[in-house]
């Protein structure tokens, strides 16, 4: 497994025209054609966003976009994420040819495109041992956005001669602010384990789009080999129609092997491994259960989890997403008892409502579980959902005592959350309903 330096994630470029704060930098190498490709990672500090963008070992340090358009500057594999609070920020990530460094987002409220922000760009060398192609990434973060508001945007850039090359116009909507809109509903799609099944993944993203989620949580194993750029290309190309309009963050899966391809192509909060955020009434925690150092499971990740859930005690809903399943009737992997010992007790302590994972390529919903006791109603414990059917070859299931429903099928899960009620529906890849449940709480 590639060892990684815990320099983290992304840079935000908030030099928007108008009301947005201006960006400044304290670092950044020249990414021009003549510069040597130094892939030691790096950091770019942004004023106004409240977080840094950091690239890891294997990628260049992020540098502000310039005015160079290469031979093929048209953006492709555009997708959304976020590095800050999703109520007030949004990140765009896209690719171009290697020479293009122009990195600009035009955006505005509603259908307007009256603001502009400059992003950062960096390269990395893909493949096992860095033996593959060099990839150019463009990444921009918009900060200071208005919560619960629809924006339009284009990505691309302007060359030194004034030539413009921008994408088609897409839209996104920021998350509602829990204080200002305490009763707002959010819809979240959970899906994972697409690896090797990108035709199915493409179909699923179309089906998910018809449910119009506000957020997508990917539960890991997007690709079979984390260093395979070809697989990542399939993943992002097949999902682009959806992912250009709905932000997606991911839990790291064991097949991602902490590869630079994973961290460089996704924009996520914190250190991009163990992080959390509020999305309307939802407090969402995401954990890496395949860290470079397995000691992190009982150390860094568990400490983060404990502190995060303690601070989120008053959140209307608490969901944790990770790759491996604490409870699973999948015949391939089954329940991960190590994680149950390390993290299950924390979920029980802070009354986590739902844990969504993957790893086993099945769909499963458990009965509510607390400790080793299987309950009858949601008040009796946490419901564990295995949503590992995004395209990978399916595994078998052998329902256990804790199983409410399990099926070996490609699927995705849509959860609608508002204070007082969580409603979950899961669908097969043919669109047929697979499972549903509701949880209500007194408000």
């Amino acid at each position: 497994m590639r060892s990684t330096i815990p320099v983290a994630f992304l840079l935000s470029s908030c030099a928007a025209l108008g009301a947005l704060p201006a960006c400044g930098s304290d670092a950044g190498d020249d990414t021009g054609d003549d510069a040597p490709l130094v892939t030691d990672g790096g950091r770019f500090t942004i004023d106004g966003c409240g977080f840094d963008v950091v690239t890891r070992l294997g990628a260049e340090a992020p540098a502000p976009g310039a005015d160079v358009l290469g031979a093929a500057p048209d953006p492709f594999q555009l997708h959304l994420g976020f590095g800050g609070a999703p109520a007030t920020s949004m990140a765009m990530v896209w690719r171009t040819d290697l020479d293009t460094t122009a990195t600009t987002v035009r955006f505005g409220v509603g259908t307007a495109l009256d603001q502009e922000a400059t992003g950062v760009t960096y390269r990395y060398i893909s493949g096992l041992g860095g033996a593959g192609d060099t990839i150019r990434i463009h990444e921009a973060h918009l900060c200071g956005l208005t919560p619960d508001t629809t924006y339009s945007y284009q990505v691309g850039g302007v060359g030194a001669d004034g030539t413009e090359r921008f994408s088609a116009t897409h839209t996104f909507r920021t998350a509602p602010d829990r204080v200002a809109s305490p009763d707002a509903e959010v819809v979240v799609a959970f899906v994972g384990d697409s690896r090797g099944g990108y035709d199915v993944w493409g179909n699923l993203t179309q089906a998910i789009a018809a449910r119009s989620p506000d957020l997508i949580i990917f539960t890991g194993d997007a690709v079979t080999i984390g260093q395979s750029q070809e697989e990542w290309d399939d993943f992002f190309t097949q999902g682009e129609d959806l992912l250009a309009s709905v932000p997606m963050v991911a839990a790291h899966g064991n097949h991602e092997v902490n590869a630079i391809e994973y961290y460089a192509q996704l924009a996520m909060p914190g250190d991009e491994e163990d992080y959390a955020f509020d999305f309307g009434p939802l407090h969402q925690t995401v954990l890496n259960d395949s860290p470079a150092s397995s000691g992190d499971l009982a150390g860094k990740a568990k400490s983060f989890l404990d502190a995060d859930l303690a601070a989120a005690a008053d959140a209307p809903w608490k969901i944790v997403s990770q790759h491996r399943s604490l409870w699973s009737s999948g015949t391939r992997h089954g329940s991960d008892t190590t994680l149950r010992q390390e993290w299950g007790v924390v979920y029980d302590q802070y009354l986590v409502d739902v844990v969504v994972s993957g790893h086993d390529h099945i769909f499963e919903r458990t009965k509510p579980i607390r400790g080793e006791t299987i309950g009858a109603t949601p008040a009796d414990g946490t419901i564990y959902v295995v949503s590992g059917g995004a395209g990978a070859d399916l595994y078998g299931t052998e329902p256990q005592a804790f199983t409410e429903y399990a099926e070996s099928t490609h699927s995705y899960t849509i959860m609608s959350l508002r204070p007082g009620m969580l409603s979950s529906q899961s669908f097969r890849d043919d669109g047929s309903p697979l499972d549903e449940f509701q949880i209500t709480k007194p408000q």
Partner: protein
Amino acid sequence: MRAATIGRILVAVALVALAVVGAAPARAGDPAADFRAATRLYADGDLDAAQAAFEAVAAADPRGPWADDALSEAANVAEKRGDLDAARRLWRRVVDEYPQSRQSRRARARLAAIEAEIGAGGQWLEVAEQHEAILRAAIGVSDPTPQARALAALVAAHPDYPRAPEARLWIGDTLLRVGEVDRALAAYRDAVAHAPAGDAAWRAGKALGDGLLVAGRFDDAEHVYRGLYGQGDALADRALDGALDDVARARRRHRLGLAAWLALGLGVLVVAGLAWRSAGGPIAALRGLARPPLELWYFLPVAVVLGAVAASGNQLVERAVRWILLGGLVTTWLCGAGLELARRRGRLRLPLVAAHLAVAIAAVASVGYLAVMHDRLIDMIAETIAHGHEGR
């Protein structure tokens, strides 16, 4: 106006009245409380009353902060009830009356999806509602064969229904899942025969190929897959490459599996024949083979310990270990007893020992192969070799 539509309207009016009177919240006139009361009805599974109650919230204060959410929830509930006409009407209201709301984006997506299901003029409304009702009746059902039959009848009666292609695939998938392989293949063939050209045809063909592969009809699966090349994009062709690899692998494994069973059968015959020869007759041979040899008492505790250790880990591994141990016990017993029989009769010769050794090796290899092939444990082993141990 159709009688069914008039009936729906009357029911809706009655439900609204019922909701206002019967499901009224404790604090009348408080839209938040009314909304939460409707939510409770929803959670309790009283969908008719919940929809009426949500609509009542929107009607009571159409400019209030709860109106768009209430209409959206009413539309959601209508979809769950399978009332696509009501769902379409309610989503349309969200789009038209609350275009700037959070729900409008979702409403547009749902509206487009529903209109695609029922046709531009709503001509497929009743069929689509029956389709939805059948699918919903299959949720959580361990044997959805009756629903598959009902849907097959519906599609047969309405072959031009826009969602017929996906319905036929659902029928095939469902029948395959419950082990009705031949009927599943018939459903897939029906899907292929009726699928419009393009993506639907490719999906139907791929599903048929996958079904044939599951059924062990490798030549037919390969033929179907090869016929799909060029009908989709580059990714589709790559998926076919993978499918053909699967066919080749499955064919190879099937042949090796047959060889393993053949080796086991031959091994039993050889041991029986050698015992007959050593004992001088069938009865004496059976008596000799029925006596546990000394080796068995060494192997048995080892088998128990290994079996117990395996039982604490992965269930696929446990199952394989169990079968390997059982095969080992049988092999040990038969070969050991056969050799003991020959020794007692003074007929222990090198060729006989070599024959027993060959049988034991073939039996162990065959049992081992069959055990790791079961439940595709071999794939997990291959994955572990390729990607390393998971470290848990």
